[in-house]
C-alpha cells in the first residue's frame, strides 16, 4: 500500500486548506457565525471520558468537512453524531461516543419541552393525552422519590444503535412538535412504574431495564403507561370457518389486533380448497389463494400505530389440497394475483407426513370441506382418521411425499419462508393440551409461541427477554463465568412483570381477553447467548457451550415455575389449571424423556406446584428479539453471530456493527489494523483466513455460515426440554440445495424440535466492495468460476494444475 494512503484521516482533513474560515453556522436566533473548530472539539472531547481509543479532533474535523455554509447548529450536532457513528467499524468505542453525543442531544430536546424531571414528563404526557391515568396517579403519589431514582449515568450503558432505536421509535413524542418529551432513563422508569404494583417494585424493575439486563417486548415498551396499553406481542387465531362471512370476520380480527402492534399467526386449515363445490351457488371454489391475497393487502394497510407495518404468518396443514399454491405465495415470479409479498408462511406438518417422506411413500391431499375434523386431531387420532379418509377415497390427489417435501425445501431456500413447524410435537408437549379436545392449531408469527385456540378464542402471549450478556461476572483470576444467582433473581422479577401485563393489557378483541385470562400464558425468553460464549471464550458448537446453554435454559424454566407457583399461592392458580399437564405432575422435560440436573430440587418444586398450582399455564418462549437485542446491544436470542462485521438495516437507517469482542482480541494481538479490516470486509466478515489469529480464536469467532447446523439443532433440542412453548430457531445455509435442506429439517424433526423459523441464505452474487482499496478483491472476476474445476474445458482450467 502506498505510504501516503496510510496517513491518518484526521491529519488529512486538517491540512485541507480553508475549511476553518469559510464555514458558518446558523444559531437558533437565526444569526450566522463562523464555525469554531476548537469549540466543537471541546464539546466532543467532554464525552470521551474513558474511551481511550477515540479521537475527538478527528470527529470534529470530519464533521466540519461534511457541513455546508449556513447549516443550522442542530444539523451540526446531528452530523457530529453520525460522523462518530460512521467510525464504529474502525473502532467500536466510537459507538459509545456516538451514543453519548446522542444522549446529550436528546436531553436538550426534552429540556426544550420544559421537562426537567421524570414526574414532569409524566404530567406533560397526561396533559397531551398520551399517559394513562393509573400511571399518572402512581407517579404523582411518589413524585419526589421517583424523580430522584433517575440515574442519568445509565445512558452510558447504551451502544449507539440501541440508543438511536430508543430515540427514533420508543420515546414518547409531542403530538404536534414531534419532539420527544422523555429521556431514555425517564422512558425506562415510565415502563417500570406502569408495570409495577408498588414503588419498590418499580425501582427493582427500573434497575433491571436501565442496566439492560432484561427488556420486555416491543409492544410493552411502546405502550406501557399510555392510554392504549396493548402490551402483548403475539396473537394466534384459528382458521376461519369455511364460510364467506367468517373469512371476512377474520380480516377484521387481524386488523384490530395489528392496530396496536403485535404479530399475528393465522391458520387456514379449514377453508375449502380449489375446485371444491360451493353448494349454495353451484359454483366452484377458487381455494384459499384469493382469500390470502386479500389478507396480504389488509396486512399492508394496517400500520402498527404508525410505528411498524403489520405482520402476519399464515399456517397451513400439509394435507390441504392447496398446499402447492400456498408454497408459491412468496415467489417473486409468476402471476401477481397469486402472490402475497407481505405474508409469512408456515407449514403445520403432521408426523405422518414426515414418516411418509422417510418411507418414500405417497401423501394424500384433501379438501377440508370433506375432512372437517382433521385440524382438530393430532397424534394417533389424527393418523387413524387420515388413513380412514384415504381408504374412503376422499383424497383430491395423492402425490409422492418426497415431491411435496422437496417443494417445501425449495420454498425455504428461495424465500426463507415456509417455516417447518411440527403439529404433533407441538400438541403432545403442550401444557395446555392436558384435557381432551384441547388442540394447538398453529404457532405464531415467529414460531416460538405454542398455545391452544378454540373457535374465536384468540391465544395471546406477552413476552420479555433476559439479556444473558449482562449475567456474567469476572472472577478474581480474570476468568468470566455465568452468574446463575443473578439469573434467578431476574427470572423471578420478570415473571411477575409478565404476569401483571395479562391484567393490564388492553384487548382489542373479546376472544383474546377470554383466552388470556383463562390460561395466563407468558413467554420469558433470552438474548445474548452468543455474547456469553464470546465473553467466556467458547466455540458455539463445542460441548462446553452446549452444556452451558442447557443449564441456562434449565435454570430459567426452574425459576419461572417457582415464581409462577409463588404467584399462584398469593393470587390463585389460573382458571384452567386443572386441565393442564402440569396439574397431572408432568413438566416439559418429562415429555422429552429428559432428567433434569438436580432432581431433588425439582422434586421439591413439583411438590410446591402440587400444593399451590401455577399462575401461568406457559412460561418460557424464546422470541427472535430483533429490536430489543438492538436496544440492549447484544446478539439476538439464541443465535450465533451472522458475521463479525455486518450492517443492520432498520427503519432508523443503516448501522454498521463490528464484533467488539473480536476487536478486543485482535487489539491484544496487535492485529486490529486497516489491513485486517479490509480483509474482514472482503471475506464477508469471516476471520477464517486471517493470518496470525490463533486457531482457537478462529473457532470461537466463526459465523453462522461456518457452523455446522447439526450442532445448532442439537443445542436447540437440549434446550427444548426446558422450554414449555418453543424457540425461534433460524437455520443458515450459504448456498442451499434440496438434498442438504431435506436432511437438515428431517433431523430437526427427529430431534423433537417443535418449530423452526427462517432459513437464512446468502445472495448468489455480491455487491462490489466500494471502500476496500484492493483491486484484487474489489473486482476480482467470479471467484467461484475460478475454483470450479471445469471438466468441460480442461485446457483452460487452472484450478487443478
Amino acid at each position, binding site marked *: 500500500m502506498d505510504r501516503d494512503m496510510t496517513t491518518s484521516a484526521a491529519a488529512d482533513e486538517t491540512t485541507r486548506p480553508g475549511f476553518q474560515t469559510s464555514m458558518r453556522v446558523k444559531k437558533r436566533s437565526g444569526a450566522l457565525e463562523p464555525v469554531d473548530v476548537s469549540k466543537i472539539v471541546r464539546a466532543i472531547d467532554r464525552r470521551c471520558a474513558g474511551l481511550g481509543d477515540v479521537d475527538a479532533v478527528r470527529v470534529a474535523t470530519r464533521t466540519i468537512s461534511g457541513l455546508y455554509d449556513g447549516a443550522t447548529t442542530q444539523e451540526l450536532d446531528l452530523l457530529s453524531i453520525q460522523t462518530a457513528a460512521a467510525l464504529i467499524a474502525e473502532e467500536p468505542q466510537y459507538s459509545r461516543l456516538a451514543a453519548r453525543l446522542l444522549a446529550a442531544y436528546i436531553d436538550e430536546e426534552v429540556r426544550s419541552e420544559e421537562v426537567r424531571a421524570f414526574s414532569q414528563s409524566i404530567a406533560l404526557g397526561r396533559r397531551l393525552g398520551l399517559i394513562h391515568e393509573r400511571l399518572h396517579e402512581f407517579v404523582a403519589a411518589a413524585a419526589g422519590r421517583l424523580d430522584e431514582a433517575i440515574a442519568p449515568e445509565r445512558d452510558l450503558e447504551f451502544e449507539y444503535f440501541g440508543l438511536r432505536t430508543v430515540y427514533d421509535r420508543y420515546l414518547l413524542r409531542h403530538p404536534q412538535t414531534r419532539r420527544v418529551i422523555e429521556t431514555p432513563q425517564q422512558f425506562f422508569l415510565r415502563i417500570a412504574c406502569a408495570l409495577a404494583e408498588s414503588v419498590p417494585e418499580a425501582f427493582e424493575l427500573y434497575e433491571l431495564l436501565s442496566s439492560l439486563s432484561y427488556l420486555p417486548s416491543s409492544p410493552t415498551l411502546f405502550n406501557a403507561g399510555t392510554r392504549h396499553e396493548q402490551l402483548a406481542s403475539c396473537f394466534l387465531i384459528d382458521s376461519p370457518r369455511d364460510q364467506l362471512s367468517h373469512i371476512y370476520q377474520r380480516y377484521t380480527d387481524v386488523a384490530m389486533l395489528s392496530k396496536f402492534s403485535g404479530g399475528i399467526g393465522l391458520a387456514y386449515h379449514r377453508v375449502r380448497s380449489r375446485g371444491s363445490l360451493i353448494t349454495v351457488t353451484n359454483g366452484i371454489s377458487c381455494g384459499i389463494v384469493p382469500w390470502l391475497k386479500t389478507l396480504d393487502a389488509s396486512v399492508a394497510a394496517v400500520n402498527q400505530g404508525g410505528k411498524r407495518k403489520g405482520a402476519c404468518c399464515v399456517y397451513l396443514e400439509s394435507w390441504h389440497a392447496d398446499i402447492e399454491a400456498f408454497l408459491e405465495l412468496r415467489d417473486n415470479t409468476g402471476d401477481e394475483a397469486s402472490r402475497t409479498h407481505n405474508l409469512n408462511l408456515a407449514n403445520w406438518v403432521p408426523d405422518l407426513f414426515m414418516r411418509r417422506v422417510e418411507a418414500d411413500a405417497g401423501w394424500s391431499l384433501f379438501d377440508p370441506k370433506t375432512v372437517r375434523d382433521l385440524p382438530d386431531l393430532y397424534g394417533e387420532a389424527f393418523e387413524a382418521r387420515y388413513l380412514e379418509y384415504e381408504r374412503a377415497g376422499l383424497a383430491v390427489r395423492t402425490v409422492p411425499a418426497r415431491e411435496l417435501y422437496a417443494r417445501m425445501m425449495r420454498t425455504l431456500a428461495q424465500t426463507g419462508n415456509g417455516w417447518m413447524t411440527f403439529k404433533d410435537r407441538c400438541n403432545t408437549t403442550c401444557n395446555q393440551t392436558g384435557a381432551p379436545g384441547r388442540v394447538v392449531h398453529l404457532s405464531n408469527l415467529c414460531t416460538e409461541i405454542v398455545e391452544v385456540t378454540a373457535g374465536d378464542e384468540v391465544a395471546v402471549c406477552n413476552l420479555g427477554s433476559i439479556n444473558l450478556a449482562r449475567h456474567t461476572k469476572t472472577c478474581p483470576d480474570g476468568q468470566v463465568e455465568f452468574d446463575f444467582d443473578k439469573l434467578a433473581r431476574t427470572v423471578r422479577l420478570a415473571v411477575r412483570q409478565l404476569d401483571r401485563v395479562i391484567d393490564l393489557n388492553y384487548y382489542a378483541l373479546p376472544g383474546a381477553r377470554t383466552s388470556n385470562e383463562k390460561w395466563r400464558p407468558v413467554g420469558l425468553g433470552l438474548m445474548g447467548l452468543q455474547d456469553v460464549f464470546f465473553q467466556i471464550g467458547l466455540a458455539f458448537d463445542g460441548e462446553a457451550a452446549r452444556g452451558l446453554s442447557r443449564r441456562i435454559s434449565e435454570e430459567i424454566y426452574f425459576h419461572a415455575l417457582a415464581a409462577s407457583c409463588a404467584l399462584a399461592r398469593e393470587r390463585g392458580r389460573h382458571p384452567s389449571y386443572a386441565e393442564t399437564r402440569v396439574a397431572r405432575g408432568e413438566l416439559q422435560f418429562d415429555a422429552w424423556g429428559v432428567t433434569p440436573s438436580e432432581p431433588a430440587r425439582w422434586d421439591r418444586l413439583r411438590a410446591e406446584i402440587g400444593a399451590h398450582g401455577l399462575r401461568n399455564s406457559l412460561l418460557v418462549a424464546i422470541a427472535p428479539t430483533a429490536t430489543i437485542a438492538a436496544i440492549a446491544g447484544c446478539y439476538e436470542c439464541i443465535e450465533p453471530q451472522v458475521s463479525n462485521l455486518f450492517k443492520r438495516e432498520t427503519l432508523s437507517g443503516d448501522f454498521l456493527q463490528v464484533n467488539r469482542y473480536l476487536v478486543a482480541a485482535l487489539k491484544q494481538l496487535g492485529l486490529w489494523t486497516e489491513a485486517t479490516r479490509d480483509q474482514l470486509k472482503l471475506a464477508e466478515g469471516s476471520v477464517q483466513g486471517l493470518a496470525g489469529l490463533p486457531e482457537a480464536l478462529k473457532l470461537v469467532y466463526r459465523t453462522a455460515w461456518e457452523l455446522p447446523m447439526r450442532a445448532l439443532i442439537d443445542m436447540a433440542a437440549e434446550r427444548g426440554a426446558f422450554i414449555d412453548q418453543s424457540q425461534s430457531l433460524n437455520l443458515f445455509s450459504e448456498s442451499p440445495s434440496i438434498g442438504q435442506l431435506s436432511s437438515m429439517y428431517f433431523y430437526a424433526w427427529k430431534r423433537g424440535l417443535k418449530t423452526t423459523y427462517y432459513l437464512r441464505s446468502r445472495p448468489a452474487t455480491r455487491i462490489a466492495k466500494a471502500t476496500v*482499496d484492493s483491486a484484487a478483491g474489489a473486482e476480482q472476476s467470479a471467484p467461484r468460476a475460478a475454483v470450479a474445476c471445469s471438466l468441460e474445458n480442461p485446457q483452460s482450467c487452472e484450478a487443478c494444475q
Partner: protein
Amino acid sequence: MSHVHRPARLLDPGLCLTLRPMAYPAFFEMYRAAIKNTWTVEEVDFSTDVGDLRGRMSEAERHLVQRLVAFFATGDAIVANNLVLSLYRHINAPEARMYLSRQLYEEALHVQFYLTLLDTYVPDPDERHRAFAAIENIPSIRRKAEFCMRWLDAVQGMERLDEREQRRRFVLNLICFAACVEGLFFFGAFAYVYFLRSRGLLHGLAAGTNWVFRDESAHMRFAFEVVSTIRREEPELFDAALTSDVQAMIAEAIDCETQFAEDLVGGGVAGLSVRDIRQYLEFCADQRLATLGMPRRYGVKNPLPFMELQDVQEVANFFERRVSAYQVGVTGQVVLDAAF
C-alpha cells in the same frame, strides 16, 4: 465462417454457437450466478418513501432525489443500448452472450424500477416527462449523457473487428462502460442513495437500489473479466497509448460526475460535500485503474463513511424490511442423510 468452431480469440468476428467444449466457463458461471439473484420490482416496498419525501426531507434533499431519479431513468437505458450495439455484437462466445442477454434483462428491470419510482415520487405527468427530458435539458445530466454517447458513437458502424484499430476502439468502449459508466457514474449515484439510507430515508429507493447495485457490480465484474481475457489473448492491444487514453477518459468522467455533484448538493446537504464526493470518485477510479492493471493516479482514501455500510452483510429486521438475500434456482433431490 463456421458457427461451430471456436474462434481463436474472443474478439474474432462471427457468431459462434458452440457451447461444448466451453472456452470461457467463467462467463457461464457468472450467468448462472446472475440467474440466482432474480428480483422483481413488485417486491420493493415504497410505502414509506412518499411520506419521507413530503415530511422528513429538506428542499435541498428533495432536489437531490429528483435529479438522481432523472439520471437513473435514462442511465440504465444507455447501458442497455451499448450492450446491444457494441458488446453483444463483438464478444464472440455464446456463453458470454448468454451473460449479456441476462444483463440486458437486468438493465430493463432497472429501468422498470426507476420508472416505478418516478411514477411514485412524481405525481404530475408533465414533471414525469421532464425527468426523461433531463438528458437534454439539465446540463449536469446532459454532460454525462454526451460522454456516454461519444463512446457509443466511436464504435458505430463497426460491423467487424478485423483491424487492430477497431479492436482497440472496442476495448476503449468496453472499458468506458465498465469503468466509467458503471464504475463511476453508477457508483457515484449509489453513493447518494446510501447517504440517504444511512439517514433512514427512502427505504423503497434504497432497497431497490441495493439490488440494482448488486446487479451492476456483477456487470462490472463481467466486463472486467472480458477485458482481462482480451488482454491475455491480445496483450499487444494494451500499450502505453491505451493506458493514457483510459486515464484521460476516467479524468473526464470524474469531471462530469463532479459537475453532477455540484448540481445535486448545491442547495446544502449536511454530510455531503462536493469535495468529498470528488475524492470518493477518485478513490473509485484508482480501483478501476488497478483492476485494469494500470497505475493508480489519485492516491486518496475513501472519504464517505456511509459507503462502508454497503460493503458488509445486511441483517434485516424482518418486521421492517424484506430480506434481499434469497436465492432463486435451488436444485437437488430429497435425501435424508446429506451433510449439513
